[in-house]
């Protein structure tokens, strides 16, 4: 266990350990039937959002590029994953393998989208980069909205409905064919093949990929570019290359998360992956701490469950959610309030600070 002497490694393994422990505890509780349905129904979406948060943290926290269109990559992954899962349902009867294949396909499509978008986008910085990622997110949403996809014995049929006057009938599917994506109506009637275990595996993969990337030579280069672009450039680092690496890896992970998400619901509409979803994931990242993967995981879990936990407030639910969000931001970022809170909770603060 000599490698654990290294502080950074120890910290990373603590994060892995935390995820494994959480998975074991939750699985045990679920098998005992202790967890209410309102919570157990959220397990898969929570893992999706955790992966989204980890992947966005790579771009926003590690590479320092503010992205407001991350849900777009989730959308690409979700819909390509759904198409893959539906069209392979005969070829691969095993749900687990089909899910894995569709997540890989989702990740690949999202990575390609990330690469194509990354090349122009990463010429910009700061708020201009933010608005362009927002723009791409919206473009992806509209493009998916125009897609009509079906499958039959011949193979896949795809129509890009630009003029808005095509319908599923224009696919001319053979007998026994199914329409998978029906424009704005999205994909419906898809099989629910996602499982919590698959979500857990995906979280572990995402963590391993991101943490190893961050600790690698490339990761140090990415952070060097973030901290001082000019200095990094002057020592011969290719700025675009390293930012692009972070962007594409992040897009691929978001795509895999999207594929998992799509496999968890029997209906998926393009409108789900809008600006608000991108913002939601950004909230996880900022609240969890930029560059802090463990923080992203915890924030994603808590903030996904929070609106459901607030159902007791009835009509005031979303109002309370908004107030909690503002207060948490104030208490975590204002030096004076943080100090006050620290006095109120001296033990917890100290304990965790040591653990770090």
């Amino acid at each position, binding site marked *: 266990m000599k490698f654990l002497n290294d502080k950074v490694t120890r910290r990373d393994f603590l994060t892995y350990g935390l995820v494994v422990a959480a998975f074991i505890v939750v699985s045990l509780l679920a098998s005992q039937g202790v967890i209410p349905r309102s919570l157990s129904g959220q397990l898969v979406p929570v893992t999706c959002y955790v992966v989204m948060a980890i992947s966005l943290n790579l771009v926003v926290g590690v590479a320092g590029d503010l992205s407001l269109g991350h849900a777009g990559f989730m959308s690409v992954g979700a819909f390509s994953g759904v198409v893959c899962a539906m069209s392979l349902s005969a070829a691969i009867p095993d749900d687990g393998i089909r899910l894995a294949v569709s997540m890989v396909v989702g990740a690949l499509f999202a990575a390609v989208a990330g690469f194509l978008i990354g090349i122009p986008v990463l010429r910009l910085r700061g*708020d201009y980069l933010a608005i362009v990622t927002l723009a791409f997110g919206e473009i992806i949403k509209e493009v998916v909205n125009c897609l009509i996809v079906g499958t039959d014995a011949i193979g896949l049929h795809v129509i890009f409905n630009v003029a808005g006057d095509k319908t599923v009938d224009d696919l001319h599917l053979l007998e026994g064919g199914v329409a998978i994506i029906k424009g704005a109506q999205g994909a419906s009637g898809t099989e629910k093949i996602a499982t919590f275990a698959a979500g857990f595996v995906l979280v572990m993969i995402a963590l391993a990929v991101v943490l190893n990337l961050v600790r690698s030579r490339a990761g140090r280069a990415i952070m060097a570019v973030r901290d001082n672009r000019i200095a990094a450039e002057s020592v011969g680092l290719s700025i675009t290359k390293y930012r692009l690496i972070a962007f594409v890896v992040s897009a691929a992970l978001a795509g895999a998360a999207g594929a998992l998400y799509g496999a968890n619901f029997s209906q998926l509409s393009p409108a789900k992956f809008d600006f608000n979803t991108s913002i939601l994931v950004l909230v996880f990242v900022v609240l969890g701490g930029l560059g802090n993967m463990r923080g992203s995981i915890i924030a994603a879990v808590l903030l996904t469950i929070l609106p459901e936990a607030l159902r007791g407030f009835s009509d005031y639910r979303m109002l309370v959610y908004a107030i909690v969000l503002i207060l948490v931001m104030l208490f975590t970022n204002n030096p004076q309030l943080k100090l006050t809170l620290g006095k109120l909770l001296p033990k917890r603060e100290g304990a965790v600070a040591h653990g770090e």
Partner: protein
Amino acid sequence: MTVFLQYLANGLSMGSVYAIIALGYTMVYGIAKMLNFAHGDVIMVGAYVSFCATSYLGLPAPVAVLISILACTALGVLIEGLAYKPLRQAGPLAVLITAIGVSYLLQNAAQLIWGATPKNFTAIVSFPVPEPLASLNVSAVSITTIIVCLVIMAALMWFTGHTKMGKAMRAVSEDKDAARLMGINVNRTISMTFAIGSALAALAGVLMCSYAPVLQPTTGAMPGIKAFTAAVFGGIGSIPGAFIGGILLGIIEAMAQAYISSSLANSIVFAVLIVVLLVKPAGLLGKYVPEKV
């Protein structure tokens, strides 16, 4: 040709609405350097206040607009003081997320106060429109909006250029710490910026809802994002840029809907934005600041 002119006029009308929202956005961004995602929701509140003043209290339109401006100014200063000021030392992302929280808060509070059922906003101005504008379906509201935009633009440029407060704002925008050393009260200056920005939001809300008459708690959200796009398009922080960006955005959207595809109109607008930013990375009229080594 007439049809083309009509699309152009439609685009100009919509664009003037984007422009007036973008002016408020760019004002706050330019000086406080924060993306105030709650701006669209302040607009919504402004429209509701004016609606209540005219429909429930029976007040004449100018009084209603005035009340709405006062209410939004107070709201803007309040939001700034409670939610943004404590985060002055924190990173810009913390403020961004707080602004999103404020946006959710305003939307949900509005629903609790005014209900979710949409209300129809009666236009606050109407006068006979002279030819040839009338035959192009340019409404009195659109003409008013464009005039108000121009007046606000001129006033803001004069204010930031020639008054003491305006110069203080520019100084804060350039360098907060240096401004503080020069004896400028940075907090007060930023509060003032929010007051002006929110007053503009009230005006924008009233004019926007006069143009697009549906009023519900989420009314401000999408126009807010579009206007943000317009502000970036014109070069965020630049006052004439916001106006030009808004107008161009409206026209591009109208042309895309008319001649390319009405389902992809937004994408086309955003694609044009991306191309513009790639050619001119700081927007049409934005200052491009080369980094010193």
